[in-house]
């Protein structure tokens, strides 16, 4: 980019607040940490555009983000939302086109060296050397984080134990399972005792058992006081690990708060109905809800329809009567508190990725897509 253009961007009027109504007009609430708390990460107005040939992709469209020291921030968003781009900027791998970011007060562009000695990064794909053993990988990372030979050896041993890799320590990584590689990758990020740990989708692609092992390993680090910035596509994961969740979509933060806050933001309970016959899904949907499509979730597989329940139990009774009047047989009906799925759907107008094997079945189709 020419300096001219760059200055033009930097001189542009301040970005509008990073909230954006979704198709049905819902605006997320963004709760920043209380002022005065020490911040590990501060990002202001990060913009990044990728150019591939003649086409450009606006990956980040003014990301504002803070992470309080000693806490876990979950950056939650679907594929392509801009999570990896944000992480790469914070980890000094990528320069933002506009905006700035600091880690523990050090600018990621002008003080990249200082930032690198503070952070530990584990990227979206395990970046370990397949032809080295687990122990050799960790020793190498320790040395490159500037530990002495002995310290690097000791640290490798310690991490192998913490991540249940001792038995496989002297095997080449090529023979490791996906879960073991991810754990080794995370261990590598910790080799230099980072004050800020940055994990990009640490469990994507893992089977449920490995995912839970990974969550345990991550929680242990947090208990030790490491500040953590974590990206995920899984609502369940953000709920499990993060103190505060920032929802990102199309390069912007569209809401932020605790899981409970986000749930109460989108208001009341939901009504969930399972109709008996597949053919009656459509009819039932019209009985249940005549508001915007974006608020309705339909799972064709399980014939489950979920809609907002304005009026709670009274509305439920009404719905039961209306369904009976319309002669639509049902298998199950009930009220439930909103989940993060509902939050995501309401905020973005589309469905978030599902955690594999979470037992709820997949959302095969959503009528909410506009």
């Amino acid at each position, binding site marked *: 980019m020419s300096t001219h253009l760059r200055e033009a961007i930097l001189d542009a009027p301040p970005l509008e607040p990073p909230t954006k109504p979704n198709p049905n007009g819902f605006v997320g609430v963004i709760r920043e940490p209380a002022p005065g708390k020490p911040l590990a990460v501060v990002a202001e107005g990060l913009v990044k555009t990728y150019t591939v040939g003649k086409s450009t992709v606006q990956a980040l469209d003014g990301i504002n983000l803070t992470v309080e020291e000693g806490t876990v921030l979950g950056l939650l968003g679907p594929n392509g939302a801009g999570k990896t781009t944000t992480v*790469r900027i914070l*980890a*000094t*791998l*990528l*320069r933002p086109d506009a905006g700035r970011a600091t880690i523990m007060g050090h600018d990621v562009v002008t003080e990249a*060296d*200082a930032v*690198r*000695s503070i*952070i530990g*990064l584990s*990227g979206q*794909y*395990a*970046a*370990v*050397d*397949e*032809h*080295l053993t687990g122990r*050799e990988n960790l020793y*190498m*990372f320790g*040395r*490159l*984080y*500037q530990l002495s030979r002995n310290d690097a050896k000791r640290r490798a041993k310690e991490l192998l134990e913490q991540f249940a890799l001792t038995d496989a320590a002297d095997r*080449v990584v090529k023979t490791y399972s996906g879960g073991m590689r991810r754990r080794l990758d995370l261990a*590598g990020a910790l080799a*230099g005792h980072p004050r800020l740990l940055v994990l990009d989708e640490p469990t994507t692609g893992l089977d449920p058992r490995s995912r839970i092992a990974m969550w345990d390993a991550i929680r242990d680090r947090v208990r030790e006081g490491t500040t953590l910035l974590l990206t995920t596509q899984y609502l369940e994961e953000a709920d499990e690990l993060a103190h505060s969740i920032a929802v990102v979509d199309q390069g912007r933060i569209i809401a932020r708060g605790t899981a409970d806050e986000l749930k109460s933001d989108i208001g009341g309970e939901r009504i969930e109905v399972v109709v008996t016959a597949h053919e009656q899904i459509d009819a039932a949907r019209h009985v249940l809800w005549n508001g915007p499509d974006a608020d309705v979730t339909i799972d064709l597989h399980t014939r489950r329809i979920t809609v907002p329940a304005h009026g709670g139990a009274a509305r439920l009774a009404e719905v039961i009567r209306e369904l009976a009047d319309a002669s639509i047989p049902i298998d199950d009906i009930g009220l439930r508190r909103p989940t993060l799925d509902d939050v995501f759907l309401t905020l973005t107008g589309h469905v978030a990725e599902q955690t594999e094997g979470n037992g709820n079945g997949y959302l095969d189709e959503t009528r909410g897509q506009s």
Partner: protein
Amino acid sequence: MSAIATPRAASANSFRQAVSDGLVVAWRNLKRVPRIPELAIFAIIQSIMFVLLFAFVFGGAIPLPDGGSYREFLMPGIFAQTVAFASAITAIGMTEDVKKGIIDRFRSMPMSRSAVLSGRAIFDLVYQSFIVLVLMISGFAVGWRVHGTVLEFFAGVGLLLLFTFAMSWVGIWMGLYMKTVETAQQMGFTIIFPLTFVSNVFVPPETMPSWLQPVAKWNPVSTLTAATRDLWGNPNPYASQGFPAEHPALLTIIWIVIMVAIFGPLGVRKYRSLSN
């Protein structure tokens, strides 16, 4: 940063760190060699195939002007060709590291900005010394002999290794630019292959069309080959015709300096700005 660190101490420190980080990266690359034995075996087999092909199949049809031994003529060229080819392997290795994300990991660490590259160059030097040693033994088996002094022998080996080091920086730079491992492979072949064939490795350049002769004579692979032939007392026809033939060692050293001076900084610059 501590307040007492003077700039000079800082730069001495950062030099020490660059060396130590570079050695860690070289260690990593060396550890990989016995774990992927195919790579070393194919590199050696390929060179031995060239020796056999030219020594026994084509060699009889390529008479040397002053009647020297073709095999003695051939071997120094094979060494030069081998270390030139090695830069293609280096490029492939670098591209692979970028693709697999390990370079990104290194770039997120508080390590010296040149260490990933210098570590690779140090590794290439050690690894190619081993390959050349195996080839020298094979050459000896088919009748290659060194006639100069011990000092001249080692001077030739030194030139060969310096050249390896320089070519390694070319390979590193190429590897960082390539988008896929396949393009790195093809790039290696389309550039290095002609370089080693339009040279004095297999036939004297004087047998080539006149428009091609300058390329074959000034080509760094040729100057290195001519220099080592001279130093080792192996046949070097037309040794006194034209500047490159008269000063091959000097030219080789100039080539080495040029390659390192250009591709070293270019590579480091590319490394620092990768993915931007």
